[in-house]
């Protein structure tokens, strides 16, 4: 237990771990859905503190990682056009499209701007009425409501030069796809706390029942994750499969009703491709017809762009929990944060980046040296 003294409450951490060790009698595989949870787990060595019988599998919960190459290529095409101001969150800058990224587009003269909030992009549109301002709208259920509100505001305020390239994804259909895979090993889920802060937990009981899998809503702090694991393991040992909220301080059962109402108004559910995984039915949102005027894909006619993903990147397997990052041949050699093959390495929330950053390199010595991060 080499890391435990670093915890905010080491005594509570010990008690949780003791309880988990005392409860577990058989091997169990749990998936943490959120990339933030993955980072917390690896940073604090939680997976090493848990009994050998409890395996944590890293899920697809990093929006940057799962955004399809095709959508990145559409963004690069739009950002390269004269007269366009392309606004994005900072963590999309280095996500590789085909041959380049937004960082390079800016270097080539494209007007790419980083914003903290989608409302910042709307303000840029108001200040530049003679330019086309496009916001790159990606993310899960936590990011979708701010983006929905921004499109709603653009329509309400009559800002014609603002549009959004939308590629939002939804967690429950991803859980369904993971559980439906013949190679699935996941027996329980630690659901993403902040997604549930917005959406509540109403979508999960049906999944828990159908796949007979416990789903425990979990936060991001080490103690939150240990508590999530403790509750999931306890259910598994008892043969139960219910939805349990272990992050009640931030998650109400109904989520945030105002945000959910706005999502329903601005977006409609659609099939969505996930990078490295492929199309998952009903797993995304697109702008509803009412907001078509603000749809960048339509406005810039980039709907026809089709891109094949490179075969050498195995991030799809990592995202589905079929492969640990360091088990990939390219990890730390061909693929590093400086030269990423895929988004799980370039995104700071990606599982590959977490393994790289925290030197979780169960690798041969030579390979581990090459993979040591530049800090």
């Amino acid at each position, binding site marked *: 237990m080499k890391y435990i003294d670093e915890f*905010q409450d080491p005594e509570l951490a010990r008690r949780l771990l003791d309880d988990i060790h005392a409860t577990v009698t058989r091997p169990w595989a749990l998936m943490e859905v*959120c*990339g*933030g949870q993955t*980072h*917390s787990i690896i*940073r604090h060595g939680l997976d090493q503190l848990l009994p050998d019988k409890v395996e944590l599998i890293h899920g697809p*919960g*990093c*929006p*940057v990682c799962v955004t399809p190459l095709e959508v990145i290529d559409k963004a690069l095409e739009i950002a390269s056009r004269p007269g366009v101001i392309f606004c994005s*969150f*900072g*963590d*999309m*800058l*280095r996500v590789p499209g085909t041959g380049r990224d937004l*960082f390079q587009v*800016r*270097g080539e003269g494209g007007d790419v701007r*980083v914003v*903290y*909030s*989608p*409302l*910042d992009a709307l303000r840029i549109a108001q200040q530049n009425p003679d330019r086309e301002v496009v916001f790159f709208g990606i*993310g*899960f259920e*936590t*990011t979708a*409501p*701010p*983006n929905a*509100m921004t499109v709603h*505001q653009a329509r309400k*305020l009559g800002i014609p030069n603002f549009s959004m390239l939308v590629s939002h994804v939804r967690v429950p259909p991803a859980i369904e796809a993971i559980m439906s895979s013949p190679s699935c090993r996941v027996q329980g889920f630690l659901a993403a706390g*902040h997604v549930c*802060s*917005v959406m509540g937990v109403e979508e999960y009981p049906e999944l828990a029942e159908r796949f007979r899998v416990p789903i425990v809503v979990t*936060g*991001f*702090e*080490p103690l939150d994750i240990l508590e999530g694991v403790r509750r999931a393991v306890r259910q598994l040992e008892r043969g139960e499969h219910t939805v349990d909220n272990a992050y009640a*301080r*931030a*998650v*109400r059962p109904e989520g*945030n009703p*105002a*945000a959910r109402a*706005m999502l329903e108004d601005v977006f409609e559910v659609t099939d969505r491709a996930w990078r490295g995984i492929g199309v998952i039915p009903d797993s995304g949102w697109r702008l509803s017809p009412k907001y078509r005027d603000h749809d960048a894909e339509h406005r810039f006619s980039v709907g026809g762009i089709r891109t094949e993903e490179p075969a050498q990147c195995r991030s799809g397997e990592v995202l589905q929990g079929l492969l640990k990052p360091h088990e990939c041949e390219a990890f730390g050699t061909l693929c590093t*944060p*400086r030269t990423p093959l895929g988004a799980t390495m*370039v995104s*700071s*929330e990606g599982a590959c980046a977490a393994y790289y950053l925290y030197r979780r390199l169960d690798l041969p010595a030579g390979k581990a040296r090459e993979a040591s991060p530049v800090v």
Partner: protein
Amino acid sequence: MCLAVPGRVLDIEDRDGTRMATVDFGGVVKEVCLEYLPDLEVGEYAIVHVGFALQRLDEESARQTLELFAELGMLQEEFGDAWEMAAQEAGTVPVEEVRNQ
């Protein structure tokens, strides 16, 4: 971008018919939209994501989470200079320097 960060409301005002707040995230101050948490008040804490308050949080939880995120470097990712970070990751000098050459 994925993680929502807890912050404390410093003041609130109505701007163009939209309820907006100034929020302190452990020393970094940003403007935040309160349309999804309209009854949030000055001094309260909330989970904020990309400029929108999404859910209330008690002070102790907020403080602990902020400390964790600071430790993980996530506050720097959320509020730091994205171009500088991208340049470092790419192993190149910042774009502005290239343009000035």
